[in-house]
């Protein structure tokens, strides 16, 4: 328990976001009946790099966008095939926006939209490996504030669906997931574009101790996203486009506690019109399963 409290205190002092599905507690555990888990995850991304299409352009106004989210996430496992999850972010965001030829600083913070999901998994346990196919319907409820110049939420009810497969042996781990979000029109006629993409994790398990139930996972992540263009009234997101990122993941675990740190770096971006790069992204999370 002292490890958990220490980690939670450290993490609560940091600011960071992410909506990847391959998260410490959510995918790997708990897979036992009536199990539950909770985690705190910090995500941070942003950039002052300005793009037109996939070309970097001059940025004399110093336009930038940085977003930081602290996620509280939980999961309840009815049995290994049926789970329920929630994710609730606290968001801090700031940007310098071009308004009539002048760079204007705007910022906002507050609770974001609540995401509820029902991961359904079909497991196969075969000798020295276990794998599962999953389908996860999700809903994003507009609990975030949608007022102001730089609103936290567009106030819309959005619907997500993901298809996944993960496979694990004592030494290797792979995870592939297709994600899709249908974003509807919210308050003030704001609407983010629909999103779809793919996440791939390839992992290696270099160390494990049966005695202490602790170990290390190293992984490499590839992910690609397509974001449809938002409505002109949309004040919260970038212009849409395509993004491919990759980067390392480090996972440490001891008994029922798992820590995960992740860096994603954009290797290809093609924005609609002119927009800031999403920039590199950092994720740090710690989860505990009971």
């Amino acid at each position, binding site marked *: 328990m002292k490890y958990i409290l220490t980690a939670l205190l450290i993490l609560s002092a940091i600011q960071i976001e992410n909506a990847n599905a391959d998260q410490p507690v959510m995918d*790997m*555990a*708990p*897979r*036992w*009946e009536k*199990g539950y888990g909770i985690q705190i995850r910090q995500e941070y991304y942003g950039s002052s790099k300005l793009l037109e299409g996939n070309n970097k352009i001059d940025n004399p106004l110093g336009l930038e966008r940085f977003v930081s989210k602290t996620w509280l996430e939980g999961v309840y496992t009815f049995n*290994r095939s049926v789970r329920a999850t929630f994710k609730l972010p606290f968001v801090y965001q700031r940007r310098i926006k071009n308004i009539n030829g002048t760079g204007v600083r705007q910022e906002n913070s507050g609770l974001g939209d609540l995401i509820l999901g029902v991961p359904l998994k079909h*497991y*196969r*346990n*075969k*000798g*020295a*490996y*276990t*794998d599962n196919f999953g389908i996860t319907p999700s809903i994003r409820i507009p609990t975030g504030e949608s007022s102001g110049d730089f609103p936290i939420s567009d106030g819309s009810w959005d619907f997500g669906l993901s*298809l996944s*497969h993960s*496979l*694990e*042996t*004592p*030494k*290797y781990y*792979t995870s*592939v997931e*297709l994600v*899709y979000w249908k974003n509807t029109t919210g308050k003030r006629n704001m609407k983010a574009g629909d999103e*779809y*993409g*793919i996440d*791939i994790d390839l992992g290696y398990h270099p160390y*494990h101790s*049966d*005695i202490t*139930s*602790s*170990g290390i996972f190293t992984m490499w992540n590839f992910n*690609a996203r*397509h974001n449809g263009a938002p409505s002109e009234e949309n004040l919260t997101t970038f212009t849409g486009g395509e993004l491919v990122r990759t980067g390392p993941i480090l996972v440490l*675990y001891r*008994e*029922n506690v*798992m820590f995960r740190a992740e860096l994603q770096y954009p290797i290809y971006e093609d924005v609609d019109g002119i927009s800031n790069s999403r920039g590199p992204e950092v994720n740090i999370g710690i989860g505990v*399963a*009971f």
Partner: protein
Amino acid sequence: MSNFITLFAAFALFVSIAAPSYAQHDAHSHDHENIEIKPVDTGNVEVMDGEAVIIVQGIVCSFCSQGVKKKLSKLPFIDDTRYSKGVKVEIEIQRVTIAIKPDTEFDMEQVFKSIKSGGYEPVVAYNKVAGDLVTVYPEG
């Protein structure tokens, strides 16, 4: 939409290639180590007095197997003063060892039920009765 179809095709291709190849990789490596999971080689299983050993399909992740430990350690005949609350999980060989309290009524069916509730499938179990090794298979 064409991009989406491309992604889906990539996903299907990846799964079809990765799943069997990783599984085969480990099966082969265990063959090299003379450890077979299925069919079980009883000659590789050593059972100590006051213990039972269960071969469990797919128990390859310590963090994921916490539920098995949790469920087993709650059983009344588990000696939680030994191992980790009475349970040891060896993920390299998919083996669970439980410590049994002396002079208690041991019930292997409850052990199988707890492992299933923990998300895994037990294949076979061994324990000693009056000094003799006994093999028990789960029902079904």
